[in-house]
């Protein structure tokens, strides 16, 4: 009965206004992105698409995204003055608006983040009520909600990879909630996205990382903590 609402969906969440899709959801997209990046970015280019393109200032989504990039939580009152904190922390940012990307969800944000040598691109959608979908990571389809614990594994597209990865995770005491694989081209890298009900151990992550055919592993624990 996982679909039943909690009373704290009726009276809650505690959040920064004005709207869950324009603030809470936006903060969570940024928080998911910095988990993928592995820390706060040095610089960020933020593109607001479609309905967000015109309304992001009025709704304060610009401050919400910067607050999220600074690792503020969805109920952190510093979000209102996030630009001041960005200046104090040396976070550089630029905003762009694109109005007619019809293939994207109405409330879509693209984040291009840099930290040292590392650069990532994350596309996130704010679905309402603070719920998000991370649609793409570095050009791969991802589609995860960042509500549970998520593994993103970029690996050589070898046969048996899916079965192998799921059997390793099965050794942990966690359930796989969703698992998807996307490929960029034939014989190119495959991107596995696995959502799990609970976290997995550092040693398991280290083991998977040590395998030669696994090129990159990103572990995203619950972003709301």
């Amino acid at each position, binding site marked *: *009965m996982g679909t*039943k*609402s*909690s*009373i*704290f*969906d*009726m*009276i*809650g*969440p*505690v*959040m*920064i*206004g*004005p*709207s*869950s899709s324009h*603030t809470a959801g936006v903060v969570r997209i940024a928080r998911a992105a910095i988990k993928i990046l592995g820390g706060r970015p040095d610089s960020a280019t933020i593109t607001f698409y479609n*309905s967000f*393109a*015109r*309304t*992001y*200032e*009025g*709704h*304060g989504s610009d*401050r919400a995204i910067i607050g999220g990039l600074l690792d503020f939580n969805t*109920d952190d*009152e510093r*979000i*209102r003055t996030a630009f001041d904190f960005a200046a104090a922390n040396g976070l550089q940012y630029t905003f*762009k*608006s*694109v*109005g*007619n*990307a*019809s*293939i*994207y969800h109405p409330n879509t944000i693209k984040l291009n983040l840099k930290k040292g040598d590392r650069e990532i691109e994350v596309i996130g959608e704010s679905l*309402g*009520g603070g719920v998000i979908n991370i649609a793409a990571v570095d050009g791969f389809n991802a589609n995860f909600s960042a509500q549970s614990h998520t593994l993103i594994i970029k690996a050589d597209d070898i046969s048996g990879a899916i079965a192998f990865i799921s059997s390793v995770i099965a050794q942990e005491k966690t359930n796989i909630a969703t698992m998807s694989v996307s490929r960029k081209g034939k014989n190119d890298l495959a991107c596995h996205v696995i959502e799990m009900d609970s976290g997995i151990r550092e040693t398991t992550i280290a083991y998977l990382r040590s395998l030669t055919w696994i090129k990159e592993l990103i572990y995203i624990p619950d972003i709301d903590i």
Partner: protein
Amino acid sequence: MSFLFDSFKAWKTYCEAKHRSLHQVVLDYEVSQKNAIEDQIWAGLFRAYTVMRDAVETGLREEMSSRSGMINNGAKKVFRHPVSVLSPEFQKLISRALAAKEVNSCMGRVVAAPTAGASGILPGTLYTLQEIHQLPDHKILEGMLVAAGIALIIEQKASLAGAVGGCQAETGSAAAMAAGAIVYCLDGDIDQVFNAVAITIQCMLGLVCDPVAGLVEVPCVVRNASAAAIANSSAQIALAGVGAVIPVDECIEAMGEIGASMESRYKETAMGGLAATLTGQEISKRVLIQDIELLPDENLPE
């Protein structure tokens, strides 16, 4: 097996059969459906109530103007005005509902109850109820549980989202939650609580969602005040034992039916009603970003 909040009628039957009060059934639901621990539920409710009270006080104390300029410290002006239209209590009720909602519009911390757009209604009503009747916090928290139970049923039978059911679903539902909580806290019986919900819904039916420039400011802020007033008038009527004639479940179904047949321009799209007025359009031009890139067709992302 806990009660699943599919109808008010069944909620009452369940209470009577199990000798549980309205709020206990909501508590049991959260414990069994969400594996929650009772102490944590009370702590969560207390935190929500604390945030609500803080929002009221912040809105009456601090600078509250929104980026668009449409919201500009209205709550404080109402609170301090020397002429009380009805009574000082009424004046406080209205200014508190405005205050909490202004905090929401100005990027402050609020509780979505049930949504962010309606986040001034429960704070305004509960704060004032507690003050007038000197109720202990715990009683208010019980009232909040009853309010949550009311919202659970509305969510199942109709909707709580402006984008789905219009403003009746947001401010209407919040007012219904508040009315039920008021009557419960003033020791009304189950029928009286449910009549307060039914009467409130009857008063809020048909309200469209037409926010100017798509921002949650106009008419949202003043609707939080009117919804708080309606919650109190409905509670006053129901507490006296005056019935709603149309049973509460049927009132909610009517709200669902009206929401379903509402055109999409009245559902948060900012294309109808106040948003589409001449002035609404002008404001929208001024506050929305005009300088946006439009992709040539061949450049659409793959």
